[in-house]
């Protein structure tokens, strides 16, 4: 298996404060990794640094994505290269229908990838099909992006965007939080549908619940901005039983 993402000794600051201090992580094509860790350990920060958010400043180390220097690209270029971030708190865009947003995003990414824009008819067909697999009411697509959506609807909408954009590496930040068990199953189904030999997943989660449905190949514990332990899927169960206390101490 080829390497998809290689993070070497990554340090990053937010507001001048060092939040990530020396992350090393290698994700191969087709693998599913989970990052777990206590609140405030830097999980979302890592996802933002990988996606190129302003204000999340890498200060040391390197990130290589499919052979390219990821940190040199702007956020849109990273999206076109195949990075997708499923947001912990999806953002509202009043006045722009979900449908319009999806189409604008898909066409922007396709254009950057040198592909032709989808015709209106093909786009509609595709989006309806994907919405169906996520158990989403097509009426929802007419509503403004995430405006007035329930927590579960917002997360489904993230999964719909992922399904449309077909990323190479999806980073999913607490996609499971705020979901009831039925919604969790639907969302997990959406994630599993994306799994394949060409794609990789990095799931950020606080609880192992999601990992019952989307079984990871590798589990990491992030504490105080550093990966303090790496193991197989059984590590998630261990964390569930014993909590993060031992790791928080260890990293300090």
């Amino acid at each position, binding site marked *: 298996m080829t390497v998809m993402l290689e993070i070497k000794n990554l340090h990053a600051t937010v507001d001048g404060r060092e939040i990530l201090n020396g992350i090393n992580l290698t994700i191969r094509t087709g693998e599913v990794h989970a990052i777990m860790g206590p609140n405030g350990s830097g999980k979302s920060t890592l996802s933002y640094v990988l996606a190129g958010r302003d*204000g999340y400043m890498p200060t040391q180390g390197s990130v290589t994505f499919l052979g390219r220097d990821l940190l040199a690209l702007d956020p849109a270029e990273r999206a076109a290269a195949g990075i997708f971030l499923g947001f912990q708190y999806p*953002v509202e865009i009043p006045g722009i229908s979900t449908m319009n947003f999806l189409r604008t995003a898909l066409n922007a990414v396709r254009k950057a990838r040198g592909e032709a824009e989808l015709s209106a008819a093909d786009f509609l067909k595709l989006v309806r099909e994907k919405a169906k697999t996520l158990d989403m009411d097509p009426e929802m697509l007419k509503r403004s992006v995430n405006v007035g959506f329930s927590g579960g609807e917002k997360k489904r909408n993230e999964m719909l965007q992922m399904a449309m954009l077909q990323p190479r590496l999806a980073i999913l930040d607490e996609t499971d939080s705020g979901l009831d068990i039925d919604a969790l199953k639907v969302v997990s189904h959406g994630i599993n549908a994306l799994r394949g030999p060409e794609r990789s997943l990095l799931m950020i989660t606080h609880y192992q619940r999601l990992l019952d449905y989307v079984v990871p190949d590798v589990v990491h514990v992030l504490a105080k901005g550093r990966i303090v332990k790496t193991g197989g899927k059984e590590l998630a169960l261990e964390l569930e039983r014993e909590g993060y206390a031992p790791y928080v101490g260890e990293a300090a």
Partner: protein
Amino acid sequence: MTAANPHETLEQITGDYKYGFVTDIESELAPKGLNEDIIRFISAKKGEPAWLLDWRLKAYRIWLKMTEPSWAKVSYPDIDFQDIHYYAAPKTGKDGPKSLDEVDPELLATYEKLGIPLKERGILAGVAVDAVFDSVSVATTFKDKLQEAGVIFSSISEAVKEHPELVKKYLGSVVPYSDNFYATLNSAVFTDGTFVYVPKGVRCPMELSTYFRINEAKTGQFERTLIIADEGAYVSYLEGCTAPMRDENQLHAAVVELIALDDAEIKYSTVQNWYPGDKQGRGGIYNFVTKRGACRGRRSKISWTQVETGSAITWKYPSCILQGDHSVGEFYSVAVTNNYQQADTGTKMIHIGRNTRSTIVSKGISAGRGQNTYRGLVRMLSGAEGARNHTQCDSLLIGDACGAHTVPYIEVKNPTAQVEHEATTSKISDDQLFYCRQRGLSAEEAVALIVNGFCKDVMLHLPMEFAVEAQKLLGVSLEGSVG
């Protein structure tokens, strides 16, 4: 001059503002300055009847005693009204072109470049256009087709000759020649503009539009538009405007009068894209405009929709006088100020008749060092039994150096009248920008998308033919506002 690819050439010449080129055409200019002789000159050029010259001169004598208004939240150096040419017209044969075939090819090419082909086919096949170039109307399309429906659509100069009774009856009946400093100036020196009359019971079969273009340096454009919808008539009209990029400021002081009789409806849309000046605030158009509609008839309706992205300074308050019982006034506005642009814009809704209703939706977007003021008056007079107004006034800020201001005036003299006013101010959030960029949009595409969402409630009132163009224009006007 015919360029192989006019659009490419345009961008090379003008950079950000795509309409900033100058057409090299021989013009006839009035000498600079303003006095009674100049007014006589303009009137003679147009072959006007004596009553109209008198009307102009009366306006001029009143104007001499007026002072420029200073209450708007805009600042600019004093305008030297003697340093302006009040008349500029492309040189033509004796009487001007009789048909499109006779229009100077250079002018046709200019409008082609501006995306307003003066051909009765192609992308704007459903839209009749009156093209006003500096002080004169150079072409009007689809006249014959409109005539069949009984609709008069012509330049105002022509209407003065062909339909003097209509012009005499309605000119100045909504905006009197003594109305305000700029409207009075306009009354004295107006050169051209559009005239529309839709007879009783006629639904105008196509969109009408005027495209205003300032070309000459050191000129002002003073156009006058008069639209009358007789009983039960309907018309939708749109105006667009552009000007070359110049370091000096140029004055545009227009007057628009609308009259809607019983059960008539006028929908008036503006996409204003005058040259806004450069990034340092040099140059640009002073857009000081008086627009007012009278809902004279019962159940009549006047709806203003404006997308104001250009001009160094915008000063305009398209208003409705709701005289007829059950008449309806609407004002939907998007105003963008970027770099050093200033806009003080809004509306006046004057409720006179019973059960009159008005709706105001204003969206102000400020970026760079732009200053954006909404100024609106809602007046319910004592006879306005059961009248209602709803005002929604939203401001969006991009960056920290710009400003948004809301100045509502509310006067209610009838206890049964209801007035509602809501106002919000928000910023484009980093969260929204990052979310869009993560989905593959560039920073500029992200701003354009978010701003279009913010303006949706206004944009959906634009005629379809122009909505897409206006959406793009919003994006272009805000280029460079983030990142």
